[in-house]
């Protein structure tokens, strides 16, 4: 298999799908020449030209709203909002319009569109360029929310999005963009709502997604040296959420740590923990622990930033705590 970066696997999916389906177009800022701020659509503009790769003014509401109108009338937009933080200028369009259009009109219209934006913390990205908003979107019925962690999944899940009929929020973590991984040759898709066991283990389950997936893998390697066998599950899709795979794993390992970069308070970890509590509580030998950002604005100073955002060490620490059956952390 070839090795590709997450970003180039994403771009490859866009290119292949645009060749396959002329109704797909891209709308974004600084997209046609530069290929987006993370090179996520490098060379797409040169290949497909200004009709299908449309440079947009900085008008997030109109970008998302235009994508909605286009999706309702036969096109398949990929709307590139640059940074996930910039959704907030189009939140009405996302929450009140896109998410509800199928339901409120009784299924008369499809809404096949993908919104891509770069999420998460990178070095010194600061208060307004670092956020992980997937829990906000997950709370809104009508949106599919995906946050893959590998190049293979980035390509396969984008293809699934571009062949489906629902609006997809594609969370593309900045720090994953340059990460390399094997990508299968030829056409393939990855279904939504199926978690993937990245690493089998017997002592503890780590349920995670996006950037915390590779960090959890590193944590598992470190824990292995101490004889702790961690099973790492990449959820891949936030909505629909595959808690079943996590539950099956917990039945085996009896312990669960949930790791995401978004805030722990009110984050997806709370939802997953609650669902596991509801379904397989009797199997648990230790409290469920969550790893996530502390409840503060993300500062620009790396020293401060590190205090707030989780890393490999936090996962290791949480796993050690559940192995000892520690309740309070």
């Amino acid at each position, binding site marked *: 298999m070839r090795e590709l970066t997450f970003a180039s696997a994403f771009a490859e999916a866009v290119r292949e799908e645009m060749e396959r389906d002329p109704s797909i177009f891209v709308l974004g800022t600084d997209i046609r020449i530069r290929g987006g701020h993370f090179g996520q659509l490098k060379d797409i503009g040169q290949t497909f030209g200004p009709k299908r790769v449309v440079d947009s003014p900085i*008008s997030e509401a109109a970008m998302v709203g*235009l994508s909605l*109108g*286009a999706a*309702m009338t036969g096109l398949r937009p990929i709307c590139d909002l640059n940074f996930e933080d910039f959704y907030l200028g189009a939140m009405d369009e996302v929450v009140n319009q896109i998410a509800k259009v*199928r339901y409120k009109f009784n299924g008369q*219209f499809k809404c096949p569109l993908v919104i891509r934006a770069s999420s998460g913390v990178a070095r010194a990205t600061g208060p307004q360029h670092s956020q992980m908003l997937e829990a906000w979107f997950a709370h809104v019925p009508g949106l599919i929310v995906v946050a893959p962690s590998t190049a293979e999944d980035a390509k396969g899940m984008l293809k699934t999005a571009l062949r489906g009929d629902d609006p997809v929020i594609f969370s593309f973590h900045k720090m994953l963009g340059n990460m390399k991984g094997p990508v299968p040759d030829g056409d393939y898709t990855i279904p939504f*709502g199926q978690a993937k066991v990245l690493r089998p283990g017997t002592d503890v389950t780590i349920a995670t997604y996006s950037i915390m997936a590779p960090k959890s893998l590193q944590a598992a390697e470190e824990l292995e040296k101490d004889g702790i066998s961690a099973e790492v599950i990449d959820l891949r899709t936030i909505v629909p959420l595959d808690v079943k795979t996590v539950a099956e794993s917990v039945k085996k390992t009896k312990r669960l740590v949930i790791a995401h970069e978004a805030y722990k308070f009110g984050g997806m970890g709370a939802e997953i923990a609650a669902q596991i509590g509801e379904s397989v509580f009797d199997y648990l030998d230790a409290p469920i622990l969550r790893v996530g950002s502390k409840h503060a604005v993300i500062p620009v100073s790396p020293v401060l930033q590190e205090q707030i955002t989780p890393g490999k060490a936090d996962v290791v620490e949480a796993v050690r705590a559940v192995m000892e059956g520690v309740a309070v952390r």
Partner: protein
Amino acid sequence: MSTNTQSAQLPNKHDVRSFDSEFVLDLLKEMLRIREFELRAEEQTLAGNVVGGVHLAIGHEAVAVGVMKALKSEDYVTGPHRGHHIVIAKGSDMKNIMAELMGKATGLSGGRGGSMHMADVETGLLGVNGIVGASIVVATGAAFSAKYLGQDRVAAAFFGDGGANKGQFHESLNMASILDLPAIYVCENNEFAVETAVSYSTGVDHIAERGSSYRIPGIIVDGLDVLDVYLAAKEARLRAVQESRPTLIEAKTYRFKGHSIGDKENYRTKEEVQERMKSDPIFKLKHQLEDAGWLNEEQWNEMKLDVENEVAAAVDFALRSPLPDAATALRHVYSKEVF
């Protein structure tokens, strides 16, 4: 008013005789259909048969009818919360509209949307909307799609003067201008956003002036004169299909009823409303038709009876329609059942 479009062969808005008589009689009947629908919708609301909030468009009839008559049936339309007139003028069956107000299974949106959330894929109505300003962006996208697909189709967005103060308005007009979209932006300026007067809320004298900020012709029409609206919309459609350029139409109208049913209307006097109702668009056209000798009392009564029967049948249909099947409450959130 600024335009490059040829308009020499167009009729004169001041002279009803310069139009085809059947056409003008049809305009009158369409406005009457809307008026009668609205009056009966009000009645049904007060009787407790309607679920959800209702914003009547009495006074706005000429805007919807004038624009829709200038559009082709394949053109796309979006509208705001005050939108029954738009849905009717675009061609949806009144029975299904009334049923939607009553939350019935036979409603345009299967009882899921109500007054503010009606769409009709058959007529190209991409929805009226409960969020002020939202109609504007959706139509911009439909115009984009029509152009992208090379269709001879335009998209018209209806919105209020309140909507014209939303960012979506400005973002859309700019976007449509730079992308050369076949869009028509129709502002129904009824002078109020709930109780807030347009003179207070709006930093220009005429919303149409804002077109110039985006290199879009901004045209002011008498929104109580269906012929004036029609001609401007016809010109806008021509510009959209021939030049792929957007137009902003500001239709100066007036809301003869409260913001929504039950509005105490403390922000204006009864006398003011009475005075303004002298410019009722329906009676204005009726008189023009009578003066032209194209309408007599008998024909008028016949037309009224026709319309009353149609609306009564719609009310009857809606009242007798079944409620939605409760088991379908989770359907259509996603294309497949996810949860």
